[in-house]
């Protein structure tokens, strides 16, 4: 198989000499998808930008060659390079909202590429643009072509980005985390589109991602990156059946799933080493439990293991290692019997009934209320003591608003929230009993306050601890509990990594000794290895302190790992609830089924993907009758009325006419 793109010894450096990308080599054949897998900060995106020769200021190429169809890209003059970009090699980015120009129509933006790379007249450009939009599955393309990006949803924008990338008929498509910002159902649509396009056009694809599931679904071959180096390269099947490098093995082990519920995840200690700190020896050695003296002294060389498979690890360069490598692959995973204790036996801590949060839409000179956004529309749920309830749903379904209304950060329109038998709505009851852990650890800590001040704030607001010294003592205990050094309390949040910041945020919530923590996607901004650390922490805190969690997430692996019960939310209402076992393994509602099937899984061979058409409707104007009906495959005439909740078992409830 002749390669379309051949990268050899690519080195990219900062001006101060620190290598971001350090000697990367790989090949991509036509029609093949090569995935670069790695955690944030390991140099994936910089590799892509190096190939395009679009490196930001302060970063420069420092060696290596890139061959693309006989042309050496680093030797081309800038004029010819411009033809390569877009014409031979196109790129799509992570955030579709930011990569489209908001003041140009979709058609203009596609036409711009067409005019540059294809010699077409105005009519042909228009026609081709419509074709492209059709090709990427945008309905009613002829009309959409005159729309502006803000009129499109996130998935649509990413489709337009793909259409733009395809406009120059590139031989290679670089996709930099193309679905990270999208919901699972939309992600499934986009990945499907990418695969279909590749089959049709025979182009090669360089997929950059941190998501093992996406790799498993899309890639043919995989390169695992760590700290600027490719540490392992293999075909997808080889990698997923027998990962060789300890780092890759750890990545798999760190993934939360149902099989690991009950036991702690094998988190990778520490974090990716900072740039420029790299010295002799293996870069992963400080975090590797298989490291021995040689690993710290000598940088491991690239060892070819099999056909197209290689690894950068001393384990495989020495003969001794064969014994070691096999043992790790057979990691024991005994699924503990979880979820056996039925929640009904426990006393109920939080009881929410028929909670509604409506935001009024005001219009006109007098700001008259003309309608309302029904973010939360009649939700009932209960959380027993010491249990975890997961709230699952796509973005915009109202799960965060629900969490905030429980904390009274958003006023509830009607309904009741009883905490430990006491009504919270409309009363000034103490806030100490419930706290929240937010999604983005970079936005949830005040950058101008030191850790000690952050932790003390809640305590002093709720009069916990009589004086400052007492509180400081308590803070020391808290830091121990969440696994941070005591002296870190005199530092500012920016001096901590994402995972450490999330620990601080958890410590802040724990400072007032709450009984219920509302975790709003607490790990979605973190890397897989760090996510495992945080999930372990949450789990051990639950065991230790008997906390209850309301876990808001879209990551179903996390749900299976951590939750006892699951509620699936769609457009402000809960459509299905039950124990994790029931919902995850025998989902009843068509939406739950579609949602579960859309999640890319590393063991996802042979599952059927239920394609969901279109996007979620606006909560200001929900479809009459069953909200899911317009996207549902099993839609019936009775769906024009909203279905009653049906009890399938003592714990499993679903709102769908199929079960009436």
């Amino acid at each position, binding site marked *: 198989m002749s390669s379309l793109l051949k990268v050899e010894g690519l080195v990219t450096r900062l001006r101060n000499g620190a290598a971001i990308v350090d000697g990367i080599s790989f090949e991509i054949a036509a029609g093949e998808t090569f995935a670069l897998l790695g955690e944030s900060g390991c140099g994936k995106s910089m590799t892509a930008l190096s190939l395009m020769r679009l490196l930001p200021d302060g970063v420069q190429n420092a060696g290596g060659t890139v061959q693309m169809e006989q042309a050496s890209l680093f030797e081309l003059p800038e004029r010819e390079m411009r033809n390569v970009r877009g014409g031979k090699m196109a790129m799509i980015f992570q955030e579709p909202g930011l990569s489209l120009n908001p003041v140009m129509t979709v058609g203009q933006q596609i036409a711009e590429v067409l005019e540059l790379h294809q010699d077409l007249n105005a009519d042909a450009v228009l026609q081709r643009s419509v074709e492209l939009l059709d090709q990427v599955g945008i309905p009613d393309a002829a009309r959409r072509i005159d729309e502006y990006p803000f009129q499109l949803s996130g998935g649509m924008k990413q489709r337009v980005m793909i259409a733009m990338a395809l406009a120059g008929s590139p031989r290679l498509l670089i996709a930099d985390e193309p679905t990270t910002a999208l919901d699972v159902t939309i992600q499934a649509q986009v990945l499907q589109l990418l695969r279909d396009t590749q089959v049709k056009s025979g182009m090669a694809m360089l997929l950059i991602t941190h998501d093992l599931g996406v790799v498993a679904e899309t890639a043919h071959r995989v390169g695992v990156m760590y700290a600027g180096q490719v540490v392992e390269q293999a075909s997808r099947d080889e990698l997923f059946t027998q990962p060789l490098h300890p780092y890759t093995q750890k990545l798999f082990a760190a993934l939360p799933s149902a099989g690991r519920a009950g036991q702690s995840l094998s988190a990778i200690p520490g974090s990716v080493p900072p740039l420029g700190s790299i010295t002799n020896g293996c870069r992963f050695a400080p975090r590797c439990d298989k490291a021995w003296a040689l690993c710290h002294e000598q940088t491991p060389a690239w060892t070819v293991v099999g056909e197209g498979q290689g690894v950068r690890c001393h384990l495989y360069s020495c003969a001794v290692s064969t014994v070691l490598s096999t043992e790790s692959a057979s990691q024991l995973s005994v699924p503990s019997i979880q979820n056996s204790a039925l929640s009904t036996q426990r006393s109920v801590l939080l009881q929410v009934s028929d909670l509604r949060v409506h935001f009024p839409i005001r219009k006109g000179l007098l700001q008259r209320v003309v309608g309302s956004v029904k973010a939360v529309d009649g939700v009932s749920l209960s959380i027993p003591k010491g249990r975890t309830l997961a709230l699952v749903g796509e973005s915009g379904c109202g799960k965060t608003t629900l969490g905030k209304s429980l904390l009274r950060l958003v006023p509830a329109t009607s309904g009741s929230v009883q905490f430990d038998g006491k009504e919270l709505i409309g009363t000034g009851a103490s806030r100490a009993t419930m706290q929240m852990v937010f999604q983005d650890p970079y936005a949830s800590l005040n*950058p101008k306050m*030191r850790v000690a001040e952050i932790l003390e704030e*809640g305590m002093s607001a709720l009069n916990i601890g009589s004086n400052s010294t007492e509180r400081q003592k308590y803070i020391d205990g808290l830091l121990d509990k969440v696994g941070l050094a005591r002296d870190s309390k*005199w530092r500012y949040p920016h001096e901590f990594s994402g995972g450490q910041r999330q620990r601080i945020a958890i410590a802040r919530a724990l400072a007032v000794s709450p009984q219920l923590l509302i975790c709003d996607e607490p790990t979605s901004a973190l890397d897989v290895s760090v996510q495992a650390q945080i999930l372990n922490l949450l789990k051990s805190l639950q065991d230790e302190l008997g906390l209850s969690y309301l876990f808001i997430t879209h990551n179903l692996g996390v749900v299976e790992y951590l939750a006892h019960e699951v509620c699936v939310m769609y457009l402000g209402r809960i459509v299905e609830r039950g124990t994790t076992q029931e919902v995850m393994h025998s989902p009843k509602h068509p939406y739950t089924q579609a949602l579960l099937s859309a999640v890319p899984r590393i063991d996802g061979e042979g599952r059927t993907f239920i394609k969901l058409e279109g996007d979620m409707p606006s909560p200001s104007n929900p479809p009459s009758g069953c909200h899911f009906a317009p996207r549902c495959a099993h839609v019936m005439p009775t769906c024009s009325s909203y279905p009653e909740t049906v009890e399938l078992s003592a714990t499993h409830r679903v709102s769908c006419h199929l079960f009436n």
Partner: protein
Amino acid sequence: MNFIPVILWSDALVFLLIAACITATLYVRRREHLLLPWRRVAQSSMAMVSLLVLSLFLLVGLLDTLHFRIALPQSNNGEKVYSPEVLSVFDKVVEPLRTHTEKTYSAPFALTLYAKESMTDAQGNIVREYPRLRFGGAHLADEAARDGDIAKRASVGALMGLLAGGVLMLLVRRWFAQTAVLVTILIAGTLIGAIANLSTAYHVLGTDKVGADVLYLSLKSIRTGLIIGTVTTLVTLPLALFLGVAAGYFRGWVDDVIQYIYTVLSSIPSVLLIAAAVLMMQVTIDTHPEWFTTSASRADLRLVFLCLILGMTSWTGLCRLLRGETLKLREMEYIQAAQSFGVSSMRILTRHIMPNVMHIILIALVMDFSGLVLAEAVLSYVGVGVDPSMISFGTMINGARLEMGREPMVWWALAAAFSFMLVLVLAANLFADAVRDAFDPRLNRTEVK
């Protein structure tokens, strides 16, 4: 006692400001984590050089703020009578500069006036000639000896200044190790020494229309500029900060009311508003002569009122900026985290929002400072600025403006005001920039503990 101290309104405000600064310093000194950013400021040579320059200006301004009246030899029924002229310590320090006034314009280092006059010479003929100055270079018999004399005086002064600077440098070396600071001390010492020595015999920057020394005017203007800059800021800051942050944080009717106020206020042409207010105030002052014992106190009250009025009209820009920033900040998750603890709104405003808008305030204030000094010049031109008897950059520029069209041009008054303002504003900008950097936790890592 031979004199009586006089505390004008603006003096009182300055003393209040100094007291606040001292209290803040004492407060910060006892808290290590607050002291840390200031240590970083002290380590930055750019900050210390600009602070050094700034402190020279502050020193002049401060000396000029200590006012007194001298006792006259006459007495009124045994009671001492004090001169109606209010002097400052600075006036005493530069006594020769103040008293050496010529008849009218003269160029820098000139020996003669700028315009020819009819004179009677020794023979009794009336000739048109450049008359010699009364003070500038009066000690020289021969006009040709001027250049040599200037060089001699300048080098003697420079040497003295260098010596003083060297002594000072040795004294402060323990605290300020940066070479740039030490070099600045030497340069400043040399320059001040040379100018000081020259100014006893010449008008280094020439004289203005009424023959006053331009160097003296420039130095006196510093106080007016500083007062307009700082006191106006004192008025602007609480209004802009409190209203802007409150509007952004509370939204709803609070936001509506505050927005209406500042929209209305900023849509009134500010020069007209200021003119109307100043004129009203002037009428009040004129109808109550019994309120003022001296003309200086009358001019001073006008200055304070001008600051107030400038402050009242110029807070809207900063307020709008802060409102926007607060709108962004209030959606941050750490604010919501604080709300979920039940932290009071006032505390959220002061602990979470205000520290996070400080960089905007700092930059906006320093930028405003130069704008205010210029605004004063514009207002003086319209006739509603400071009292005509008060020396300020505005009145200097205004006076020089008409002479720009003259041939040959009278350039020195304008050039002097320009360069003094430039150095002052530039030093303030650079210092504020360094302070902002030192306080930005993202740019700095904690070194201690």
